């Protein structure tokens, strides 16, 4: 059954949205009008420029409220659902029963990226938001290789340490550097004949499962991911493979 919805202000189907943006023009009454017309041109109706002001020489900032005529059938939308959370104890038990040995996990920020906040949140013992990191689990052997690890070094490590799951993180996404590095790692593991041996997992604030699968990865985890979500995924996949 289809279910069409519009953004909600205070009345069903009013289609209200808020926008804010900067225009590279000096502020004036005419600039407010330009902002209004621009939003009309975007397809919105009932456009109200709530705020317009100069923020620098030659730049103006606007806050605009408007209504969209567009509605969407949300019944037709499918997105991968988050699995029900598993506890650390349950994950450890699953690995013990089904895999029968410790799972070797290696994590790194690859390329020139030095932002380890994501990979640390997942791996470090203390974890993130009260959810313990993988180092705390009994059934994971964790290697956190840190930042600015070259893909060559990571691939060598995967081979030498018989790594089961590789977690790579990229926080800097400017000009597609993240995609470039993710791809380079995938290709190198492929070339070395290691790709089928490992679970390859991508992480970063803008990562999604969809993007990860496009990159040829087994999974992708984005903003707000808890360590136990990554742990559960790795444990379940390894259990399936065992």
């Amino acid at each position: 059954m289809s279910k069409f919805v519009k953004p909600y202000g205070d009345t069903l189907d009013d289609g209200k949205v808020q926008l804010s943006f900067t225009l590279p023009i000096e502020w004036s009454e005419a600039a407010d009008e330009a902002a209004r017309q621009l939003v009309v041109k975007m397809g919105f109706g009932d456009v109200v420029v709530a705020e317009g002001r100069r923020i620098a020489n030659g730049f103006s900032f606007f806050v605009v409220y408007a209504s969209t005529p567009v509605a969407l059938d949300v019944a037709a939308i499918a997105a991968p659902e988050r699995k029900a959370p598993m506890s650390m104890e349950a994950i450890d038990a699953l690995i013990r029963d089904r895999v029968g040995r410790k799972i070797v996990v290696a994590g790194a920020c690859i390329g020139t990226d030095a932002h380890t906040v994501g990979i640390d949140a997942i791996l470090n013992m203390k974890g993130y938001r009260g959810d313990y990191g993988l180092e705390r689990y009994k059934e994971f052997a964790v290697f956190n290789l840190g930042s600015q690890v070259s893909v060559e070094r990571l691939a060598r490590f995967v081979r030498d340490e018989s790594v089961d799951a590789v977690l790579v993180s990229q926080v800097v996404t400017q000009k597609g550097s993240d995609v470039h590095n993710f791809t380079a790692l995938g290709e190198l593991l492929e070339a070395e004949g290691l790709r089928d041996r490992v679970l390859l997992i991508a992480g970063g604030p803008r990562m999604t499962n969809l993007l990860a699968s496009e990159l040829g990865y087994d999974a992708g985890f984005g903003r707000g991911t808890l360590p136990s979500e990554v742990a559960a995924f790795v444990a379940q996949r390894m259990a399936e493979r065992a």
Partner: protein
Amino acid sequence: MPGKAFPRMHLRIDSGVVAESRRLAAAIVDPVSAFIRSHSTVSVERAALRLLGVAGTGEGAAPRANVFVERLAAGTLRRGAALALGAAVAELGLEPSRAAAEALLLAPDAFERVPAEAARAALEPHVRDAMRCIDARRDERKALLGRLPQAPPPLLYVIVASGDIYEDRGAAVAAAEAGAQIIAVIRSTGQSLLDFVPEGATTEGFGGTYATQANFRIMREALDEVSERLGRYVMLTNYASGLCMPEIAALAALERLDMLLNDSMYGILFRDINMKRTFVDQHFSRMLNARAGIIINTGEDNYLTTADAVEQAPAVLASQFVNEAFARRAGLPDAQIGLGDAYEIDPALEDGFLFALAQAQLARQIFPDAPLKYMPPTKHMTGDIFKGHLIDALFNLTSVATNQTIHLCGMLTEAIHTPFLGDRALSLENAAYVMNTARHLGEEIEFKPDGIVERRAQSVLRDACALLEGIASRGLMRSIEAGTFADVRRSPDGGRGFEGVFERAADYWNPIEDALSPAPAAR
């Protein structure tokens, strides 16, 4: 820099524990200082060459200073690259840069027979020139600050990070017009691992663009222009970190940067740069900063972005004591030691604001003359820009109430993208509003004796002192090896750049170092 406003709010803390912490920090730094005195690095040598006039590129795109140092035999290098340069200058009768270029065309041992006295004498005028140049830029800044006074602290600091120096220039000017008093040009991620300083103006990079002398000059000119227009001096900062710390400091001195990110341990822990390399490099770069009047910013905020802020608070304070001890050894006066901290406490934590206030006030009282650098929330910024803007407002309030000096403005779009021009303007408006509306709050408040804030501050101080005691008994290098800081373990001979560290020969000569020491502010 700012004077102390009195009377201000005050925490009752044990001054005996503060004194003991300083004593321990000195004990921690002493053995490392002995190591520093007997060693040099390729980057220290290159910095000296650059200040003596060796400029431009040699073979391919490699900086001439790099090529010159690389060509020296190990034994020659151990006596100091300046001695080799002096020999070439004496023998060829050319200016240092030309002499270095010519020397590269000859056999590496072409000047071996030039007497050391002649080599030293040949560089004398160039050493004087270098010092004159550094002093001139320093005096220039002083005059500008007198004529174009800054707005009162906290000094609003924003970053530009487009990856293109010309875009950055436009963004910096716009930010200055919107109220920014300090502009940081973010470097391309990965520059800290380059063992050379790139040349020329750059329009590329990830997460920023390269720190080069040409880029420094482009930004300085743009900011000087806008300073005149606004009637207040706008400061410029960059990063003296990574493998080229001393050279960046040299170039910053020549191009009148006003601040440099310059931590004594950051590169070791967070960039896996060899610790010996870092300790030697930070010392020389700080000697230069002392002479150039450049305020250093230390990087304690990094302990908090990777670990829990409440738990790591003592580590932050301990690191501030260590950074202060290293900085003073290099001749930096307190007014140039911008010790770092950050507002990174989990917003869900009850009384988290009180803890942040306690930590910021604690640093203010323990380091009364330091231009403290306060970093904004990043770890708990989620993409909910509305909440983010609110958290930033409380950060701004903490900063003005505790009289922080250098205030890196938080961005509501932190964790989403590198700041848009509009983000920066909103951030500056937030800070300006909060700091204006609460300007004298810190002079109106008395802490409840033995209340939450005071007890928190006392416990952080006690724990920091205990931490310093442990480090002092084990030694700094071994403590880093054991993972004392940020849970990161580094070995003394591991990490990047170790091959560039060498022991000084008995007749080692570095005329720039000699001219810098005893530094004017040495104590």
